[in-house]
């Protein structure tokens, strides 16, 4: 008999511990079916949540060896193969407060969802009696974002949230904001974007955990990017995030490549950069990362343009005009 072991992270409101459970291998089991088996056959004190077991209600996200999955939608065989081990650690999803065992607190997340200003505020030309008009192409722009089932997987391993969740939001909140920001029926898509800028839109680290973990193949990082673009296009170019991105774009058009010496003052402002980065700059020079001559040259005269820079500029201008 092949035996599978689940080391489950448990919490009873005061005490935390890891408990080992063993059960007979069965290729027909999912992770959720395994948990139900343990609860009903071995330990009625084990707590977790589940509802539809069809990957559409979002109740049963847990972490297997530190990575979020929908328990109902994950075959036991899949994770056994992934980890090449018959022992798996099962934990509650990350970046949530744990209520008990694998059960997490959603109420505070519900309040954070409100910051996205959810709910359509439709254009004046539409009304509740006749509804709205939207082309199939416009619907396609928001369709993926609406697949979100609020399972929390995208937030579980988000590197930014793990470090500090007071100046950033769960990726699903950004996705919610973006589905209204991009909706052709919205009176003012920027309404949602502006809120998200206040809530840390530019602080995403691009760690790509949200994109990787979403069981519905949504890309919250792309939603963050789309709202950054909207904010930027609307003239909201202040702050280190947009200035940093703009510096890259400027360099691409000017010389084709990044000018690292100019990047910092462009992002932070000359005065800030000069005062705040003095130690850093001296360190670079001291260790020969950069020679003083190179640094001055780059700052004053920029990179030498790449071969074919005119072509690159033409391409960029064509793309921009096409918009």
């Amino acid at each position, binding site marked *: 008999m092949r035996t599978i072991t689940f080391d489950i992270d448990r919490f009873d*409101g005061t005490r935390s511990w890891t408990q080992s459970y063993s059960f007979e291998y069965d290729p027909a089991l999912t992770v959720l079916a395994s948990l139900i088996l343990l609860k009903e056959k071995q330990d009625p004190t084990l707590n977790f949540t589940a509802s539809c077991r069809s990957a559409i209600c979002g109740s049963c996200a847990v972490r297997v060896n530190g990575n979020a999955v929908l328990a109902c939608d994950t075959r036991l065989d899949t994770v056994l193969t992934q980890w090449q081990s018959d022992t798996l650690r099962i934990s509650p999803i990350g970046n949530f407060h744990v209520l008990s065992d694998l059960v997490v607190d959603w109420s505070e997340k519900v309040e954070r969802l409100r910051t996205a200003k959810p709910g359509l505020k439709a254009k004046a030309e539409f009304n509740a009696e006749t509804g709205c008009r*939207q082309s199939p192409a416009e619907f396609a722009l928001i369709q993926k974002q609406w697949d979100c089932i609020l399972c929390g997987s995208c937030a579980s391993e988000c590197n930014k949230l793990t470090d500090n969740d007071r100046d950033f939001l769960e990726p699903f909140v950004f996705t919610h904001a973006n589905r209204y920001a991009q909706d052709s029926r919205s009176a003012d898509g920027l309404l949602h974007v502006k809120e998200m800028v206040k809530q840390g839109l530019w602080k995403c680290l691009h760690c790509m955990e949200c994109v990787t973990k979403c069981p519905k193949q949504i890309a919250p990082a792309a939603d963050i990017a789309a709202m950054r673009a909207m904010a930027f296009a609307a003239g909201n170019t202040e702050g280190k995030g947009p200035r940093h991105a703009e510096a890259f774009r400027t360099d691409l058009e000017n010389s084709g490549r990044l000018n690292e010496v100019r990047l910092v003052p462009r992002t932070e402002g000359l005065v800030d950069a000069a005062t705040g980065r003095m130690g850093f700059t001296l360190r670079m020079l001291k260790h020969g990362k950069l020679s003083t001559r190179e640094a001055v040259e780059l700052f004053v005269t920029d990179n030498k343009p790449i071969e074919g820079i005119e072509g690159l500029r033409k391409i960029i201008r064509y793309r921009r005009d096409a918009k």
Partner: protein
Amino acid sequence: MSEDNKDDTSSLSRRTFIGACAALPLADTLGSAQAAAPASDAATGGPSGSSGMMSFDVLIVGSGGSGLRAAVYAMRAGNLSVAVVSKTMPTRAATCMAEGGINGVINYPGQKDSLDSHAFDTVKGADYLGDQDAIDYFVEKASEAVRETDFWGTPYSRAKDGRVDQRFMAGHQFPRTNYSADKTGHALLHSNFDYALGSGVKFLLDYQLLDVAVDDGICSGIVMRNLRTGEIVPVRARAVILATGGYTRIFWTRTSTPYISTGDGTAAALRAGLPFKDPEMIQFHPTGVAHGGVLITEAARGEGGYLLNNKGERFMQRYAPGKMELAPRDITARAIETEIAEGRGFGEGMTAYVLIDLRHLGREKIIERLPQIRHVGLLFENVDLVDQPLPIRSTAHYSMGGIDVRDFRTMATAMPGLFAAGECGCESIHGANRLGGNSLAAAMVTGKEAGIGAAAYAAKASMPGEGALLRIAEQWRERFREATGRASGPSFVEIRDRMAQVLWDGMGIYRTEKGLTAASDALRDLQKEYHVAKIGNASLVYNTAFTHYVEVGNMLSLARCAVLSALNRRESRGAHTRVDFPQRNDKDFLHHNLVSLKGDDYVLDQRPVTIVRFKPEERTY
């Protein structure tokens, strides 16, 4: 404020140095993402009265489609404190599983559809057990609901000219099912949740409904259990809306519905003295996976899948030679059960099955057109439909019956202050059989009407007394202590599974006097065992074992109502098939069954069906 906020705000305060202009004050309130007061003061209920008991003007139990919609409309009445109580995070409800769409006649230019036609199809689909005044009201409001939810943000699939696209569904004369790809329920549920969030609706998550309290014949609120702390909490409310969904989980191992569809509200209403209307009317879908009953949608047969018995025969030849696998749901479901009953299935008992075979469609078509069905096969049966046929059987799908609603315009019950919306209520629109696309429409319509109705009632009603609430809360505290303290006893999980077996055998797709009587006796015994069953978990913190124990108790009670009703309906109508009475009998049974609890006894009563203009005729397609 966190360190990072200091960084960024300070950098922005130095804008002047970097010569920035036209900066928007976007970063000024960084860090306000923390849980703030969810809503206006008016909408925030809280302690009141001498005892400090929690009170609301309108309290909604359940956070699926109808509950959320009720909450928005109760909020809109203005100046009322409104809260939604739920044993889960909102959006975990059965609403999210509905795929096909929401019915509503829009009558775009060039279409010939009409409200009358939708009403007729619904009446006929219901096998004439629906109340026609309620249905007339419903079809009109369903049409409005589609346009309104579009305005609220529901992402509907679109026709080329930008209007909401519509598809045909079985049993309808016109395409009037509005949809969002194959996830209409999910789209409606989440857009209603978003709209409720934006409207400032307050949510109380992780509270289990235990009972509805009645003071002087008036609903005075609910007693609930705080799952996080174990505390038994009485809540006063001028008006309570039950939106707790269906009870199809009585067939535990053979249903497509979520684990949480345990009929908690219906059972609480029953204990509070209200009748349970048409409880025997439960719709079966012909194809669910053999293990657990998750749906294999109609698309599998629509694309050309075969149904095979253990002889390898396409057995639909025997039952619907013209339509074969494309025969209506009820005929297909009965055919599958007949094959199993006559020994042409595989396995036995609850896990017996027949096969659905897609292999002849070819690998590419399966992967391209039916990826979700293939995925479900792999998940639950470890079968890849590309290489093997999949074990399937019929599965309980929808509860037509529910809490007896007396006014379909307000969703009021016979008890002042108590309202019911969605699948838990029965007004009755669906009668003996619900048409595809009418469940979401009913959730949207009845939720809205209940929200308006309850708010109007609450605005005039005085805050009810605390007596019954305190008494019931104390009873539950004692019940928790007693039940979780049992050191030995039968397993309530096994009781649940035996209940499912008893019901499947006796009150499944085929019903007989003998089978139903046996089921009735067995349920009585199971109820006795239930009261001494061991729970094995006495923790106060998120005790899901006790939560489920309460659910199993509710289901046993609802199952008894259903069996009693089914025994006494000696005819076949809609989803109710009596082998011993195969014909519909309008003379004796064109009435609703109403089961009430008197002490420990289940008592059956009847009420005639309301016929307006569609005279009962034979239901053929």
